[in-house]
């Protein structure tokens, strides 16, 4: 029997759908839909109450209309009504509508939550599943608040049905993803791990997704899952194809679950326990062995399922990167797939090999497949496969094969799909630089790149070639000769003109001896391109011309003539005009000595990380290239540029020196000049040369380039690194910043915001408090484009604070990439009332210099307030009860902000107390009440704030059941108004 019987649906719906399908035009369809919408609207609005069946039918029609791509702006209420129906079909349509159409419509969410609550407690598994599905689909914060406590209970309760357990696991996962702070770890955590042992494979399937996500975030708490996962995997792998019955898919036992188990294991390092590890290695070997067995079925599904497991197993082997034997087997297996007739397998093999290529053990083995990969790049019909082949070539490139690979990539570029050309260009540029043995090859390659794919050569690429030519005097003559030749082509790309102009302007003298490239010939060649170029390029050429006047006095009159012409000196573009005028003047009034000084050859650039690499990283998204890239740099960088410290782990993190001819980003001459169309002027005239601080501009790659030395106005507490070499700077936590109290005061009445910011670092805060517990999220943002290394933070409670507050943190990752942000969670428990604030010390190295600063963490006693509402009578009764002199604390102070009623109210509410209206007989005054929750005791607090608008003064009075609290609150608050 078919599970869905076709006859007994809703006839009205079927008719409507048929109508729509019969519409001949889009207009007719819209007309029919509008008619139906009007009909439904009138039905919903009509006086006659609709029965459940009609509601269901109309809601279903709305769903259909929505699917056709039309907005639905009504019907939500009717759908919500269906939720509380006790008929399954109606309830189910209601939930479907909500899942598809409601994302977090706040007005309805409370009603929806109510219906869900009822269904969750109904003990009817079908209803419970519907409700859990709805939570998982909507996943809003309100829902998390309402159900995050309940769902773990359902998940681990002994009497929960399997199907409900499955849904509960995924529902919890969704809530954890959207609101991790609301899903609190607890006693259920360990029981969830044991779901890996559950009899029902469906439960394991659902639970493993939850466990994987939780382990990624809290690896230590879920460590026990490793051995459980290994034994589950081992049981599946060693079972016969019939053992698992329904979970056998085309003769492969539980392929989906096997993949997920192997993924889970990738969250952890190899198991330490020898027995567990042995068992796992056995599993992996069995999986590799099975790949060689003849297939049990000819169906593609069989091989798919089998290979899905195989690829995950290989991914795990690569992740462990510790078993040379397995790595080589994995590599051989992938090698077989490279030539497989299934395109999918070739694609995946190329992709996996990419990660394998960065492993030390298998890099050589991967290289043996170079011919196959090059062939794939040339012959694959499918662009996604070709792209993977290009990625792999990039990953397997090293000194030994760089020339071959770069040549292949260049020739591929001529026919490459437009979508991937820019990325290919960046990759070629990086490889050419990284593995250049002689720089003439490098220059040739980049010029070829501009010739073949000039449009896709970004600024970073041509900046880079200029940086390198300037830094290496052995290649300058060759570069000048080559660009000169390249410029001879009748049509050459504008980027070529830029490079040519710059290089000839600097080093044209090196080839001027040859009559075929005499100064005038060079100038005429450049100037023949001038009129075809855009304004920035023309500006660059003008700068090249003035440099020519210095290099070759014999060209002076010709060039002055050009500068003097109306098209230059009266150019409508301000920048060009200004250059022409200034250069003309400079060339006519300055003596040769002055000219020679001003227009001196550019000094070498300081060496930093390659801006091209940064661009590729950005293009690929963070993490995509990073690790293997940096390791590559570590492995290869040293040799090339004589940086020395190859293999030293610190090379990964320090932006100098090994990876780094790959690397000047900041002080690039063109870089510092590039901001606006033509400020090349800046660098030509810049007296301090390229080391001068780069002009900050909009371009992300060129921004925040200044090394910390230049941040003279830095807020950092310790002396700038230039003044004190890093080694001398003390590693002890710095004393709190002078402004830390002020920063603290900013957060008395608010919980979120930016705590601190200087040129390197921004610290944002989000915090929430409940009872005597608090949780604070600190966000450390690296504002520079260079990574911070040895990044560490410590929170301390000085003096007696450590018995008053219990503060727990987890260490943060020691590396903060440029532009990245890391998060740290701090859990705070208030044990008893306190006055001081915890100290937050942050240390990291930026460009080798230690940064060390200490701030006060804005945890103040008022954060643990629970507001208390009370009537006027109660308030004054309690006020009187707190009449001992030490219970009261009072301050009279001058207003430091405008006395705006709304602002004052907002601040008092932000304080955490209840603002009591109509309590004080004088309506000008504000009174508040609250209870401070500490673990040891509760402290009742009453507050009265009396503004005097005429005198611009306040009188603040606090009465608390504990004297220290009165005092502290009074001190804190007096700073706020």
């Amino acid at each position, binding site marked *: 029997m078919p599970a869905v019987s076709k006859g007994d649906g809703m006839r009205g*719906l079927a008719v409507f759908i048929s109508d729509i399908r019969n519409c001949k035009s889009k207009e007719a369809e819209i007309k029919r839909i509008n008619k139906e919408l009007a009909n439904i609207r009138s039905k919903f609005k009509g006086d006659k109450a609709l029965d459940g069946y009609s509601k269901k039918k109309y809601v279903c029609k709305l769903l259909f209309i929505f699917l056709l791509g039309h907005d639905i702006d009504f019907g939500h209420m009717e759908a919500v009504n269906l939720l509380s129906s006790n008929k399954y079909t109606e309830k189910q349509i209601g939930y479907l509508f909500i899942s598809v159409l409601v994302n977090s419509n706040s007005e309805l969410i409370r009603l929806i939550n109510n219906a869900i609550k009822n269904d969750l407690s109904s003990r009817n598994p079908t209803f419970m599943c519907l409700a*859990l599905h709805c939570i*998982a689909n909507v996943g809003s914060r309100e829902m998390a608040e309402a159900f995050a406590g309940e769902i773990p209970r359902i998940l681990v309760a002994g009497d929960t049905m399997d199907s409900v357990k499955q849904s509960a696991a*995924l529902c919890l996962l969704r809530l954890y993803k959207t609101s991790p702070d609301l899903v609190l770890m607890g006693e259920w955590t360990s029981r969830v791990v044991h779901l890996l042992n559950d009899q029902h*494979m469906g439960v394991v399937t659902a639970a493993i*997704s939850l466990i994987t996500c939780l382990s990624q975030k809290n690896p230590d708490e879920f460590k026990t899952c490793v051995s459980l996962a290994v034994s589950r995997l081992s049981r599946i792998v060693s079972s016969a194809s019939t053992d698992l019955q329904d979970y056998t898919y085309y003769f492969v036992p539980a392929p989906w679950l096997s993949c997920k188990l192997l993924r889970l294991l990738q969250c952890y390092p190899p198991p330490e326990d020898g027995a567990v590890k042995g068992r796992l290695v056995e599993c992996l070997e069995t999986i590799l062995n099975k790949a060689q067995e003849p297939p049990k079925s000819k169906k593609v599904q069989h091989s798919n399922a089998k290979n*899905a497991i195989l690829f995950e197993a290989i991914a795990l082997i690569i992740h462990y990167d510790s078993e040379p034997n397995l790595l080589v087997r994995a590599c051989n297996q992938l090698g077989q797939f490279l030539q497989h007739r299934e395109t999918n397998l070739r*694609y995946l093999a190329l992709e996996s090999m990419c990660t394998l290529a960065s492993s030390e053990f298998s890099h050589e083995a991967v290289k043996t497949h170079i011919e196959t990969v090059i062939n794939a790049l040339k012959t694959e019909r499918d662009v996604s496969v070709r792209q993977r082949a290009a990625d792999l070539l990039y990953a397997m490139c090293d000194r030994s094969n760089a020339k071959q690979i770069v040549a292949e990539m260049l020739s591929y570029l001529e026919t490459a799909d437009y979508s991937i050309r820019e990325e290919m260009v960046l990759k070629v540029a990086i490889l050419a630089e990284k593995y250049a043995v002689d720089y003439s090859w490098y220059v040739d390659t980049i010029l070829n790149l501009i010739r073949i794919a000039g449009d896709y050569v970004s600024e970073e690429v041509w900046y880079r070639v200029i940086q390198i030519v300037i830094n290496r005097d052995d290649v300058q003559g060759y570069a000048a000769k080559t660009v000169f030749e390249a410029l001879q082509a009748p049509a050459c790309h504008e980027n070529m003109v830029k490079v040519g102009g710059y290089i000839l302007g600097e080093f044209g003298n090196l080839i001027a001896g040859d009559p075929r490239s005499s100064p005038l010939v060079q100038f005429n060649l450049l100037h023949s391109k001038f009129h075809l170029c855009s304004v920035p390029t023309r500006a660059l050429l003008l700068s090249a011309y003035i440099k020519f006047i210095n290099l070759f006095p014999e060209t002076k009159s010709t060039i002055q003539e050009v500068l003097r012409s109306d098209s230059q000196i009266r150019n409508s573009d301000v920048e060009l005009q200004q250059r022409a005028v200034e250069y003309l003047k400079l060339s006519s009034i300055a003596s040769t000595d002055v000219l020679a000084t001003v227009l001196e050859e550019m000094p070498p650039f300081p060496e930093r990380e390659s801006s091209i690499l940064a661009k590729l990283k950005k293009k690929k998204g963070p993490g995509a290239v990073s690790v293997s890239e940096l390791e590559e740099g570590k492995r290869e960088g040293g040799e090339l540029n004589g940086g020395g410290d190859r293999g030293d782990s610190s090379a990964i993190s320090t932006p100098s020196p090994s990876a780094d001819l790959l690397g000047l980003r900041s002080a690039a001459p063109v870089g510092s000049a590039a901001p606006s169309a033509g400020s090349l002027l800046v660098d030509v005239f810049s007296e301090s040369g390229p080391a001068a601080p780069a002009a900050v501009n909009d371009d992300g790659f060129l921004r925040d380039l200044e090394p910390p030395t230049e941040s003279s106005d830095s807020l950092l507490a310790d002396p700038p690194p230039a003044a004190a070499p890093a080694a001398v700077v003390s590693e002890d936590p710095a004393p709190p910043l002078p402004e830390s109290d002020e920063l603290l005061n900013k957060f008395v009445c608010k919980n979120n915001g930016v705590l601190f910011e200087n040129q390197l670092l921004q610290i944002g805060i989000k915090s929430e408090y409940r009872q005597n517990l608090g949780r604070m999220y600190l966000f450390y943002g690296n504002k520079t484009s260079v990574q911070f290394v040895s990044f560490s933070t410590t929170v301390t409670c000085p003096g007696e604070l450590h018995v008053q507050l219990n503060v727990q943190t987890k260490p943060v990752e020691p590396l903060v990439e440029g532009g990245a942000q890391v998060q740290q969670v701090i859990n705070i428990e208030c044990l008893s009332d306190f006055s001081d604030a915890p100290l937050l010390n942050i240390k990291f190295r930026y460009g080798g210099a230690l940064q060390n600063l200490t701030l006060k963490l804005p945890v103040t006693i008022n954060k643990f307030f629970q507001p208390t509402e009370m009537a006027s009578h109660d308030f004054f009764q309690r006020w009187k009860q707190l009449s001992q002199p030490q219970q009261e604390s009072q301050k009279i102070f001058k207003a430091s902000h405008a006395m705006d009623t709304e602002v004052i109210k907002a601040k008092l509410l932000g304080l955490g107390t209840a603002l009591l209206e109509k309590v004080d007989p004088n309506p000008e005054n504000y009174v508040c009440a609250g209870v401070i929750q500490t673990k040891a005791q509760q402290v009742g607090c009453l507050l009265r704030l009396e503004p005097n608008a005429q005198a611009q003064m306040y009188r603040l009075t606090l009465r608390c059941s504990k004297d220290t609290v009165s005092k502290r609150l009074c001190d804190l608050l007096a700073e706020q108004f």
Partner: protein
Amino acid sequence: MIKAILIFNNHGKPRLSKFYEHYSEDTEQQIIRETFHLVSKRDENVCNFLEGGLLIGGSDNKLIYRHYATLYFVFCVDSSESELGILDLIQVFVETLDKCFENVCELDLIFHVDKVHNILAEMVMGGMVLETNMNEIITQIDAQNKMEKSETFIFQSPRQDR
């Protein structure tokens, strides 16, 4: 995680769309169009994976698809999913539809879109896989249909039903 499941026909008409991340309705429609554009221009017999369109997260996401007769089944997933595993999942989904509708065809999806959603809900929840065992899924669907039948029998009156 599965970000979205889309079914559309050879002309790009959507037959089912299920997003597991929040997008505005407009963006959803654009994603469907963009995905159709990416998938439909590919030859048969090329690989079943490609990088996701820009709207749905670019190269961090993959589109994994199968083309059956008049319909494309496209799953958009992030890097935590096994490509071949998802391909199998699509197959399970289609086989399940085939069993539930007896030789499923495009019309079944059009006229029973709610059923298709229900079947999908038994397999995927909040972007994660709930169940891969076809028999288990069909058992659940059967049970739902029984409930539905009993209710229809009692409540549906034979009046004009428009």
